[in-house]
């Protein structure tokens, strides 16, 4: 146990763990994560099984990566605690130097002879130190005064606060991983969906897409109502970057789509023999619509938003985006199908109708619309709060460690024939150069006294 503790106090272990974490993280960005087995098989062939076995394909959630993080956390805890008592000691028991040679062994040092009595010199030194925001403590002995002055002593705890912050963040990550819930809710306007695991439901009152003048998407907005016991208790419009928080859940605008099972289509009917003939038909798939002045009814048998022929040469949709909308229409006289074929909104000339007899009619798919639905991500993440607390500690610690450098000056004043001999030494590991110039200005300020 003791040797295990000693093992973890070693900074070398921390260095090795950091290098392992770096290597593992890099590996995880080289191997695409969380894909299907088929994809890995295509990419890595026989190695796919090995990679999956070693959990390299879900590396950041793998057991060994988590073990690495746990060891890292243990190392941080042990290293921090092992050094903490010495730091507390240093902070609460200021050190005095009683021998001049110790002062003169410090990196920044000086000596001076002041034309003042010991009492006057002491007052002056303390005042000059205070002017530079040093807090001085004194020990008085017959004919001698020992001074220990320092500022920004809290800076020495910076690294400890950083480490505490990191541990809180890691803890928050564990809480998120174990208790976090995430899911997508798909809502059409006026549809109400129960939020999984929660005692309330969400209703989408309105969904809208804002466009820029050039036609690109500016924003998606969903007006939501929170429904509790059948009553609306809160109404709020959410958009990207502006989620809704309610009851421990957060709801994000995460996407949108079209319900292509219920499109409404607009067909233009023309006659080759009569350029003035133009009829406008609005219909849903499966619906029959009579063509004015003809004894024919038109029906859309099938609709595809992004038409493509798949590998079996069958019509299918490449995506849910309306990139290449196509409708399969049938012309019927009674129960007899007179003609049929695909009509393309983007490629009107591509339309080919198969028919037993030549038909005079031609069709264009002028417009397609479908009810839009909004995809709302619902997330419950009790770890997030800890992440923010940890991050605040992390930043406070970094600020203390790097922007709040501790500085210490120790002095010995000794009476010598009515005058005062002064010896001083100082140290600041984090800001040696600024400290040196401050120390020099302090000493030259003291020397100026006549």
């Amino acid at each position, binding site marked *: 146990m003791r040797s295990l503790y000693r093992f973890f106090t070693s*900074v*070398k272990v*921390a*260095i090795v763990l*950091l*290098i392992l*974490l*770096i290597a593992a*993280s*890099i590996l*995880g*960005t080289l191997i695409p*994560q969380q894909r299907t087995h088929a994809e890995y098989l295509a990419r890595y062939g026989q190695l796919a099984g090995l990679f999956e076995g070693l959990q390299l394909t879900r590396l*950041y959630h793998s057991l060994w990566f988590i073990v690495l993080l746990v060891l890292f956390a243990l190392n941080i805890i042990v290293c921090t605690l092992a050094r903490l008592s010495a730091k507390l000691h240093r902070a609460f028991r200021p050190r005095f130097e009683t021998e001049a040679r110790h002062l003169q062994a410090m990196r920044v040092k000086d000596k001076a002879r002041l034309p003042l009595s010991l009492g006057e010199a002491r007052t002056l030194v303390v005042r000059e130190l205070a002017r530079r925001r040093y807090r001085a403590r004194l020990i008085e002995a017959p004919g001698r005064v020992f001074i220990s002055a320092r500022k920004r002593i809290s800076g020495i705890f910076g*690294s400890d606060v950083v480490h505490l912050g990191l541990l809180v963040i890691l803890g928050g*990550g564990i809480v*998120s991983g174990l208790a976090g819930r*995430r899911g997508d809710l798909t809502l059409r306007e006026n549809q109400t969906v129960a939020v999984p695991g929660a005692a309330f439901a969400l209703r989408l009152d309105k969904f809208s897409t804002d466009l*820029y003048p*050039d036609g*690109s*998407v*500016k*924003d*998606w907005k969903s007006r939501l109502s929170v429904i509790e016991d059948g009553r609306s208790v809160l109404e709020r419009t959410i*958009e*990207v*970057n*502006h*989620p809704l928080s309610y009851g421990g859940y*957060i709801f*994000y*605008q*995460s996407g949108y789509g079209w319900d292509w099972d219920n499109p409404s289509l607009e067909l233009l009917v023309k006659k080759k023999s009569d350029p003035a003939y133009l009829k406008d038909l609005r219909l849903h798939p499966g619906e029959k619509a009579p063509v004015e002045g003809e004894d024919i009814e038109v029906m859309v048998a099938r609709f595809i938003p992004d038409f493509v022929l798949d590998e079996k040469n069958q019509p299918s949709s490449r995506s849910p985006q309306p990139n290449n909308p196509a409708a399969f229409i049938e012309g019927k006289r009674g129960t007899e199908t007179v003609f049929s074929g695909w009509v393309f909104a983007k490629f009107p000339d591509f339309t080919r109708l198969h028919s037993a007899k030549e038909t005079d009619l031609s069709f264009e798919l002028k417009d397609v619309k479908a009810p839009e639905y909004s995809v709302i*991500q619902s*997330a419950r*993440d009790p770890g*997030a709060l800890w*992440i*923010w607390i940890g*991050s605040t500690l*992390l*930043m406070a610690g*970094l*600020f203390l460690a*790097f*922007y709040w450098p501790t500085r210490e000056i120790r002095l010995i004043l000794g009476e010598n024939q009515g005058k005062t001999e002064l010896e001083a030494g100082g140290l600041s*590991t*984090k*800001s*040696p*150069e600024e400290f040196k110039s401050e120390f020099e200005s302090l000493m030259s300020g003291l020397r100026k006294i006549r």
Partner: protein
Amino acid sequence: MSESTFFTLAFIVYFLAALSYLAYLFSRKEGRAVLGLRLAFAGLLLHTLALVMRTVQSGHAPFTNMYESLSFLAWSSVFAFIIVEWKFRLRRPGAYVLLIVVALMALASSPLMPKDATPLVPALQSYWLWLHVSVTLLGEAFFAIAFVTSIMFLIAQSREKKGRASGSGLSADRLDSISYRTIAIGFPLFTLGGLVFGMVWAYKAWGSYWSWDPKEVWSLITWFVFALYLHTRIVMGWKGRRSAVIAVIGFLAALFTYFGVNYLLAGLHSYA
């Protein structure tokens, strides 16, 4: 005058600043370094005007595509350089830093980078865009300066070993300490902008503060490398060559996070 006029003017003035610093390297006349710094400052002002005008014209933060973010990275590098110069009065790295800046500006103005201010996609419409990108790139700019001083250290050290003067006029020791101090400024900024602000924004926009997206992972890798740098140095007392090598690797990781991930790895961050 338009944004592109100011951008071009800034480009020219940075170029003159680089020339002035180069002349200083060869002649060692103090005045040339002082002129270089003044020119860099003048270039920064012009560049700032260009960025402000672009913000006003486009109505959004000036770092939403590669052109804009390169331009902003150049701006932050000059800004970080002026701070480091004001703190440490190094003079010598000026030539190299400004040459990098000129290269960034040239890359930004190359025809490969579309310059049109396009409207923002919904996910980017947030004030977190300002906070996340600007603070991250500022942190990375300090890493870039530490990269330059670390390379200079490696050269100076190999010269000193052969018994010659360091060549850059700065002792290897001082370059080593400056590299550390510069990283110590950049590390908290990178942590705040890249990781913390990134997590907050991801939580607001995507509903999850961390998704192991390649860009997230690479910024974490960059962070780990600099954490390694700081721990080996502060706790284990590493200095000099080994520290400089880690600083160089860290900057390369930051560079890969910034460029490489966009072009080589697909993920959520596919904006720029």
